[in-house]
Structure formats: C-alpha cells, structure tokens
C-alpha cells in the first residue's frame, strides 16, 4: 500500500474522530452566573415562606394566651432582645468559647476517627473485633455518657471533650470504613496494572476514592459533635466559662425567655451555616466527579 494512502486514511480517521468528539459535547445554554442566580432564587423563596409561616403561627400562639408572656414571648419581644443582645461582647465571647470547644473536639474526632477507620478497614481481626461495636456506639445518645464522664473528669473541659469525641468518632470512622470497602474493584485493578503496591495504592487510589464517603462521615460526625457539645454545655457548667449553654441555663434561671430563644435561634443559625459549608464541599466533589446531574 502506497505511503500517501496510509497518510490520507489516517487523516480521514482523525477528522472523523474529531467530528464525533465535537458531536458528543453538550451545548451550554446558560451562563454560569445565570445558573447560579436562578439556583439561588429557587433555594431561597421556599425558606423565606417557611419562616413567615412559622413566625405567623408563633404570633397566633402568643395571642391565644396559651402561656404567660414571660414564658412564651412574642416574636417581636424576641426580635428586640436579639437586636439588643447580639451587639454585646458577652454574646460573641460565648460563641467563641463554644465554637472553640466544637472545633477542638471535632479536630480530635477527625484524627481519632480516621486512624480508627483505616485500621479497622485494613486489619480483618480488628474489624471482626470492633467493626460492629463502632456502629453500635453510633446509635447511643451521647447524653448517656455524661454521668460517667463527670465521675472520670469531674466538672471540666475534659468531660465535655470526652463526650464530644465519643459522639463524633464512630460516624467519621464509619465514613472511612465504608468508603474503603466500596472502592470500585476496577480502580484497584488499574492501580495494580500500573504497578502500585501497598502505600502507593493507598496514596493514589484508595484514599482519593474514599473522599466522598469521608466527607459525608465528617458531616454526620459534626452533627453528633455539635449535639453532644450542646448537651454537655447545659449539663457541665464550668465557672468562668460563659459558653452558649452556660448563658442559656443562666437565662432560664432568671426566667428570661427572650434570651433563651435568642440562643436557640443562634444555635440553629450556626448549625445551618456549618451544614451549608459541608454541603458545598460535598457538591464540589460530586460535580467534579460527575456524580451530580443538574
């Protein structure tokens, strides 16, 4: 076969292949910003509507005279308290103390949970020994640990940390364990074909493949840590540490319902903000991996 025939056949194939590639590409109909704005609106209006309905109900309940106003204040009374209290340093100090505990506890949980998760996923006897116990721990209400924690560590930061870590570790460990268990065999086979062994396989295939499951474990771990922390702060009040829980108990002792409600709203808002951050991380991974269709 003459050389120029070979070349022209190759050229043809190249052209046809690019044609096919071009046809496979889906046209983009919207700009990034347009999509962002419409998604923002689609996510916002139902929330606003729900808020209006809740406040309306609350106002009706208040007007019905079901409880005395000192026990159940009106939305406006709480709003006034919110406006007056939020700018004070005491409010922000409390948030700082609580968030510092939350982040320290969570960081410790991530460390312990990750090491535990990898160890259980790697060593069969360890999995047989404590694999189901980890899931069992996850189902325990964290408040059950406080009497023991107080006996062990008295009324101290360690008591709260102990319960926070115990609450969050099982979720984080389980996230890693199921992530490692469900790494598609095809990816591991590619790793083997490329000559990856032991640590290299972990570094380049198993760990990255575990990421989505790890992030959902982190998200769930955070939720448990946050709940344990709130329970802890209400039960274990440490002198001189004006945390959210401590100030809330203080407000209750003074029958200051608007302030109790102010703290409840604050805790809700913090929860939503953190959840949004986790959701954004999760979305990013899903989008990059193509697990997301929108």
């Amino acid at each position, binding site marked *: 076969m003459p050389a120029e025939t070979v070349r022209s056949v*190759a050229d043809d194939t190249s052209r046809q*292949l690019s044609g*096919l*590639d071009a046809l496979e590409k889906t046209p983009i109909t919207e700009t990034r910003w347009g999509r962002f704005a419409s998604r923002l609106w689609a996510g916002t209006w139902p929330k606003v509507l729900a808020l209006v309905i809740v406040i309306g109900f609350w106002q009706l309940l208040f007007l019905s005279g079901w409880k005395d106003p000192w026990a159940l204040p009106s939305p406006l009374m709480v709003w006034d308290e919110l406006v007056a209290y939020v700018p004070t340093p005491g409010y922000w100090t409390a948030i700082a103390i609580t968030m510092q505990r939350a982040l320290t506890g969570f960081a410790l949980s991530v460390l312990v949970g990750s090491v535990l998760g990898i160890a259980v996923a790697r060593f069969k006897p360890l999995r047989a020994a404590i694999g189901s116990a980890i899931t069992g721990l996850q189902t325990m209400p964290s408040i059950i640990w406080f009497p023991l924690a107080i006996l062990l560590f008295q009324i101290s930061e360690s008591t709260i940390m102990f319960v926070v870590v115990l609450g969050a570790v099982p979720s984080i460990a389980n996230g890693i364990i199921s992530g490692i268990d469900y790494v598609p065999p095809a990816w591991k086979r590619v790793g083997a*074909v*490329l000559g990856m062994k032991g640590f290299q396989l972990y570094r380049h295939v198993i760990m*990255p493949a575990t*990421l989505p499951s790890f992030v959902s474990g982190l998200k769930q771990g955070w939720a448990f840590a946050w709940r344990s922390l709130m329970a802890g702060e209400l039960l274990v009040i440490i002198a001189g540490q004006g945390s959210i829980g401590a100030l809330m108990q203080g407000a209750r002792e003074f029958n200051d319902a608007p302030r109790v409600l102010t703290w409840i709203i604050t805790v809700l808002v913090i929860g939503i903000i953190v959840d949004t951050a986790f959701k954004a991380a999760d979305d990013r991974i899903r989008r990059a991996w193509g697990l997301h269709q929108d």
Partner: protein
Amino acid sequence: MTDTRTAPRADTARAGAVVLTDVVKRYGRGPGAVTALDGVSLSVEPGSFTCLLGASGCGKSTLLSLVAGLDDISGGAIEHVDQPVAMMFQESALFPWLTVLGNVEIALRVRGVGRAERRRRALELLETVRLSGFAHKRPHELSGGMRQRVALARALAQDASVLLMDEPFGALDAMTRDLLHDELERIWREQRLTVLFVTHNVREAVRLGDRVVLLSSRPGRVLNVYDVDLDRPRRIDSAPVATLAADITDALRAEVGRHAG
C-alpha cells in the same frame, strides 16, 4: 511474579514476546474446583497483534489477568521478554478525582518520572490519541469512546512493549468502535507494540488480528489458530473480513452447541 523459572525454555522466550506453556488455572479446591483454563499454550510474536476469541466461560479474560500478573497460575508457565505489561479494560476506569492529563500522568508518576517530564510525555500521549484539547477536562465530561482513548494513553504511558486489551471497545457504539479500530491499528504500528486483544466479537478479531486464537469454553483450551493474511488497513465490513469471520463463527457456534443440555 516470576514466570521465568523454566530455564530450558529460555530460547523460546526469546522468540516470543509472551510464551504460554500448558497454562492451567483452577479456582477453588477439591471436588468443587472449577478449571477455567486447561493447558493453554501460545507463543506471541514480538510486534504481532493476537486476538483471543471465545464465547462466555472460555477464560479469555482470566488468561489476560494471568499474563498481566494480576492473578497466579495453577500450573504451566508464562514467560515474558519484557515486564511489566500494560493493560486496558472494557471499562476505562479513569480516576474521577483527576483530570484527563492527571489520569495519564499517574501512570508515569508511579514509575518515578519527574514532574516536568511527566507533563511533557502525558501531553504527547494525549496527542497520540488525538485528545490534546481535552487535557484539562474531567473524565465524566468525555464520551465513552474518548474515555477509552484516555485509558489507551494511560496504558501507553506504562512504556511496556506488550499491551493487553480486555474487550476494550465492547461497550462502544459501532461507529466509534470502527474509528477506534483504525486508531489502535495506527498506534500499534507506530509504537511497534505486541498486542494481546480479547474479544467475543468475531469480526472485530478478524479486523484487527494477525492471528485469531479461538478458545473453547469450560474449560478454556486453544481450539484453533487462524492466520489472518489480509492487507491492512482493513475494513470491518469488507468481504474478505466477512468471509473469514463467517468460518470462525461457525466453529464458535459448534463449540457453544457442544454445551447444550
């Protein structure tokens, strides 16, 4: 994996890029054991294109895994001139956390190639499979055929002289498969590769192979070896390809019929 334990056969190993001698593969033990491959012998010439053809249960994928060293043989010997070998599967199995470029670079990284050289070589390989424009895309943004081309570039990045392909185009539409046959043929010639290609598609085997090895099912044995003396480039729908494919299909059907009842 050390398969070069049979010293007297060293001369034949020189002659073939891969030499299989009485390869046996059994799964399980005792009465419940299943023999997947039973005495398969085959010598693959350097630079040749060999297609392994068979119906379900002929152990053709098993055979490839054994050659790749992903699994251990139960008996016989597999000798390589050059190790490791490169391999490609039906699913591209690209890593979704890496870009197209990253997926090719990873093969070089494992081999200890430096950063700059890695980048240069990966881009060159993407050029080879005509995907330079897609280096920074994510795998899910590509079509199935494009993903298989990335997988091919990744396999080429292993710089092995032997390339094993396990039904690499099995999940693609006919049009894409056709074009990829042309591409694979071109790359095979340019890079002087030795290809072992597993398929259940008879025409694909005749379109691509210098030789078509027909395997029996349960257990897998070599039934027949067909030399394909047709000029290249070939077309899958050309008359000579169809004629030989019909002969092989008859043999394949007879083999499948043997398992009835």
